[in-house]
């Protein structure tokens, strides 16, 4: 399954929607675009993981790396919408202690507003 990358905006935040498998090949396909969207634009970002069927350690690593780079520019990245095995994988990595997460987009936006 190919990874898909959809970019939108909500107010001053960039929303990136990922669909497919965020595994080694998926990361290779989208990492540059992902970093351009969530780091280089200078905006806060929301990342919609609801369309992912799988996330592997390489995918989690990509998210952490982007969140660190955004943080160094004083920008925030919030993840939302993870389901099923994706949610389990993020939970296994305790990712919510490193990157803010939310169950859905409205709650993710609320986290940015704080």
């Amino acid at each position, binding site marked *: 399954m190919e990874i898909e990358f959809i970019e939108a905006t909500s107010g001053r935040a960039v929303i990136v929607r990922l669909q497919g498998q965020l595994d080694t*090949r998926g990361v290779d396909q989208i990492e540059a675009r992902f970093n351009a969207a969530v780091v280089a634009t200078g905006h806060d970002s929301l990342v919609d993981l609801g369309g992912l069927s799988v996330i592997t*350690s390489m995918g989690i690593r990509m998210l952490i790396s982007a969140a660190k780079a955004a943080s160094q520019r004083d920008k925030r990245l919030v993840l939302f919408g993870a389901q099923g095995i994706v949610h*389990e*994988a993020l939970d296994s990595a305790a990712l919510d202690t490193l990157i803010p997460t939310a169950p859905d987009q409205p709650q993710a936006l609320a986290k940015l507003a704080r």
Partner: protein
Amino acid sequence: MRPELNSMHHAHSSPPGLPQLSLTLDASAAGVAQAQQAVEQVLTACGSAMGTRARALLLIEEAIMNVAMHGHASGTGPHQVQLALRLFAESIELSLSDDGRPFDPCHAVMPARPTHLAQAQPGGLGVQLMRRFARDMHYERRDGINLLRLWLDR
């Protein structure tokens, strides 16, 4: 010398109704993709649920990429792994063998989890995910070969 297989084949040494898969793959992202495609075909044909297939695909990637990234000294590739899949009534067994460095993912000590984003460093996540998503794992090393077996519920 372990037997080399040049192409995918279905072995029929198991009882009828329990298809096997046996592949020789590059320990690389391309090898992962090849393995995932073949495993997905088998599991779909056997009526496995999407969640089960997703777990299998994740375990395959983590196991093969672990060998690709850590199993050999850099610049000595490409290396190969052998992947086998067996189906039982209640479980799926994935077996991965390679001639890389000894590494027991069942008992390796994992780095402490970071509590802040700034502390986060790469490494260890793959093994963590294998331990989370495999119902059971077994490692042994014999005659210079690592053999890792992973089981997940069917």
